């Protein structure tokens, strides 16, 4: 049995609960055990780094320190810490790397951790992402062997997102631009993987919050290209990507007056389906852009949750304030 330390990250407790549920659902079949890090804290996402450097890295490293202590405590303690969220993975991995590349950073951070009775020696742990572990430790053959309901006929756009394959200081990925890990895994599930050139393009990250127009354009590109290439749905490895493309797709459509309907699911949810689990156990149905029709291709029946019908409310919504910069032009051009 493979044992790992788990750093779930905040979103897996809220907006990406489905990710956590589906993750738990596939651990059994794959005989993997995750041990959550005691009292972990938020990694600061992309926000804290911009405010104050040392606190930001101390915040991140506290988790590494806790994890290291935890793994040292047990005899069969694993040195590998797994993060399902790309942003968390990046922050943890980056902190660990920079503290080695620039020792002075490590010194300061440990000075801070001391105040909490903690300390962390950079390089003690291996920080890895969920899909990395699944593809390279568990292996595609094992995964293939657990498939009871192959995803035949489901056309999936593999969306790796940006923070996973880059900057990749630990050289864990097959490529920075067109990594194949997600493609291979989806193929192992029997899905039809489309050629998706934007697989590592950005979803807009926090821009949905601070500069929606900017974010909407990024979302449009991703959704439009997936749609163009005839994908039934997108598969993601990152809560942030899922949130932006799922929750803000309606807003994006409204902004560009387009009518895209591109569901996006976590790859773990698709694994669950392939392993024969029912949508209910996998948190399928809580996405705002429903995957019902897409999954109908598999003969999978998704329970109807009360859909907040974006269309109906659209006319009630107040007119969007639009920036006069080329935002509108882009909107126009995009209309098909």
């Amino acid at each position, binding site marked *: 049995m493979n044992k790992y330390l788990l750093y779930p990250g905040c979103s897996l407790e809220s907006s990406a609960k489905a990710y956590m549920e589906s993750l738990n659902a596939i651990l059994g079949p794959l005989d993997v055990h995750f041990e959550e890090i005691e009292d972990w804290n938020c990694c600061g996402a992309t926000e804290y780094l911009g405010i104050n450097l040392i606190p930001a890295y101390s915040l991140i490293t506290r988790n590494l320190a806790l994890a290291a202590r935890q793994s040292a405590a047990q005899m069969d303690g694993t040195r590998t810490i797994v993060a399902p969220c790309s942003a968390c993975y990046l922050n943890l991995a980056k902190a660990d790397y920079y503290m080695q590349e620039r020792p002075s950073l490590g010194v300061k951070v440990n000075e801070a951790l001391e105040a909490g009775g903690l300390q962390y020696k950079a390089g003690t742990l291996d920080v890895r992402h969920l899909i990395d572990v699944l593809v390279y430790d568990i292996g595609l053959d094992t995964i293939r062997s657990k498939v009871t309901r192959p995803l035949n006929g489901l056309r999936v756009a593999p969306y790796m997102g940006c923070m996973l394959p880059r900057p990749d200081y630990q050289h864990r990925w097959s*490529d*920075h*631009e*067109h990594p194949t890990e997600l493609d291979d895994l989806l193929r192992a599930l029997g899905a039809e993987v489309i050629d998706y*050139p*934007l697989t590592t*393009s950005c979803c807009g990250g926090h821009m949905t919050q601070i500069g929606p127009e900017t974010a909407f354009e990024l979302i449009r*590109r991703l959704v*439009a*290209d997936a749609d*163009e290439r005839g994908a039934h749905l997108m598969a993601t490895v990152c809560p942030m990507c899922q949130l932006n493309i799922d929750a803000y797709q309606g807003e994006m459509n409204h902004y560009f007056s387009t009518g895209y309907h591109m569901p996006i699911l976590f790859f773990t949810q698709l694994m669950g389906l392939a392993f024969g689990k029912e949508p209910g156990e996998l948190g399928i149905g809580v996405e705002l852009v429903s995957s019902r029709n897409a999954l109908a291709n598999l003969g999978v029946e998704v329970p109807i949750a009360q859909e907040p019908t974006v269309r109906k409310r659209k006319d009630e919504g107040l007119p969007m304030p639009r920036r006069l910069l080329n935002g509108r032009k882009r909107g126009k*051009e*995009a209309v098909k």
Partner: protein
Amino acid sequence: MSEKKLERVGVYVCHCGTNIAGTVDVEGLAKWSAEKLKHQGVVIARDYKFMCSSLGQELIEKDIKELGLTRVVVAACSPHLHEKTFRTAAKNAGLNPYLVELASIREQVSWVHTDKVIATEKAKAVVAGTVSRVIENVPLEDIKVPINPNTLVVGGGIAGIQAALEIANAGFHVYLVEREPSIGGHMAQFDKTFPTLDCSACILTPRMVEAGTHPNITLLTWSEVTNVSGYVGNFNVTIKKKARFVIEELCTGCGICEEKCPKKVIDEVFEAGLGYRKAVYTPFAQAVPRYPVMDKENCTYFLKGTCKACEKFCPTGAIDFTQQDEFINVEVGNIILTTGYDLFDARRVSNYGYGRLPNVFTSLEFERLSNAAGPTNGNIVLRDGKTTPKSVGIIHCVGSRDKNFNNYCSVICCMQGLKFAHLVHERTGATVYNFYIDMRTAYKAYDEFYQRVLEEGTLFVRGKVAEVTNAARYEREKGKLIIQVEDTLAGKQRRIPVDMVILSSGLQPRHDAKEVGKLFGISCSTDGWFTEKHPKLDPVATMTEGIFIAGCAQGPKDIPSSVAQGAAASARVLDKILQREVALEPIKASVDQELCSGCRICNGLCPFHAITFLEDRMVTEINPALCQGCGTCVAACPAGAIGGTGFSDEQIMAQIDGLLFRTLEPVEA
């Protein structure tokens, strides 16, 4: 300390401009040596701006004569740079050259340390060490060995051809070895050559023919060097002549076999994967020599045991399926390596999409595409083989000047990019973009060519292309390749839709350069190119006497420079040949048979078989002709019976003491 009478030592500290004086207190160092090393025999210590200059050398010669110096220490650069210079100077003044030693206080001190106090302190140690060493030096005489007038040239590209012809024309014999079936190298693949645009084949073919027919040139194609032994003037080289399965004596090069051969395979080498060839083939029409080779991996007969079409139809019965690889030995005095380059594998820059996006081409592919004798007869078309592009983007610095791939500039890409722009414009009238970081058009008539291409209306964008994608954002981009780049002069990001993208891939050392270097006993730079003896003053010689390099094997360069280097290397070789003999450093081991106990410990140590045991007298003997002077046996001998000239125990022990300031006043405890 030696009991011998004091030698008269002169110490000369070089400023090397500010190279040394900047970090080492040179005046102080000279003064210190004069005082602290006086008791060791230092009678004079001077410092001077440039010791290697003629004035500096005269200064030393004068002192030798007037002060009767018996030993000289020059504290300057690495002995690998100027040892010869100063030893020659000493010789001119009548002092045995081997009584001169260099103390490296530039490479080992001033260039690698910053604190002047510390640096000066270390410099003192280095000088003290060298002084006590030189005292133990003994006069030596160079060993003269005859030079074999034959020369080996490895690599039949333009540089190799040039070198071979120059030497052959001078009346000396050359063995020209080429790995491929024909000589000609990369130049044979090109259509036009910048900046004059003369046809590559037109200027190259005559040279190839001349090399192929020259009475003084033995051409060995489809062959590789497998072993090299010996030393300058007397190399013994083993060459593997790969089985051609064609009897050269009988073959007339009529080409019927190739015509009749039913097996078509993609030509990864000459056609850069863009065209086909048969299983038995000559890579191109003007190939030299004219007789074909059979590629065993793809030949139907070798795979299935039947076919033999070539044999059936060959009018002279020149096909021989039983042919074996053949090993031949040649004796040569000098060797020139012109092994050329490999093209950078553009697939590694995955954001440019080569290998994923059909209409992204490499420079070599485009050379074939635009070559009248190429797979499309010179029609510039897309991968589909018919559509002519309406817009073409040429991307510079692919894999070059990039810490993710190769740090260095590949030199030719800018001019090549301009050449491509011209050809595309001339043959298709398409809109052409050039994307560059810096336009580098140095050398004669190059910038004029840039001007010409500007005139033709090629659009230049200053910016390293970020990505080539097929993900259209807007209608106008649908079905095109989009080049996304920051136009750094406009300060705006641009997305430029084109039909075809050409990647100016950089040049790389041959994949096996390291092994080849090892085979010939020369080193490679960090980037993997063969290292020249001196980057400016000795660009075609190497650290190993008698081995020379030319062309791209030494670093990226264009045709004119490759030819120039080929000629330069041949001049260096001719100079050696004409001297008839060469002086070897007399660094050898020898056995003092009085002391030899015949224990035979040393016997197994010599890889050059220089050590023999004389059964009758029960002592060991060393053959100076075979001894390479590594000194391993010297270190091994328990009786201390083996002495090593140039690096004797006495010299090294003395140097240790000196380096540790054990030889300073006051010594007696």
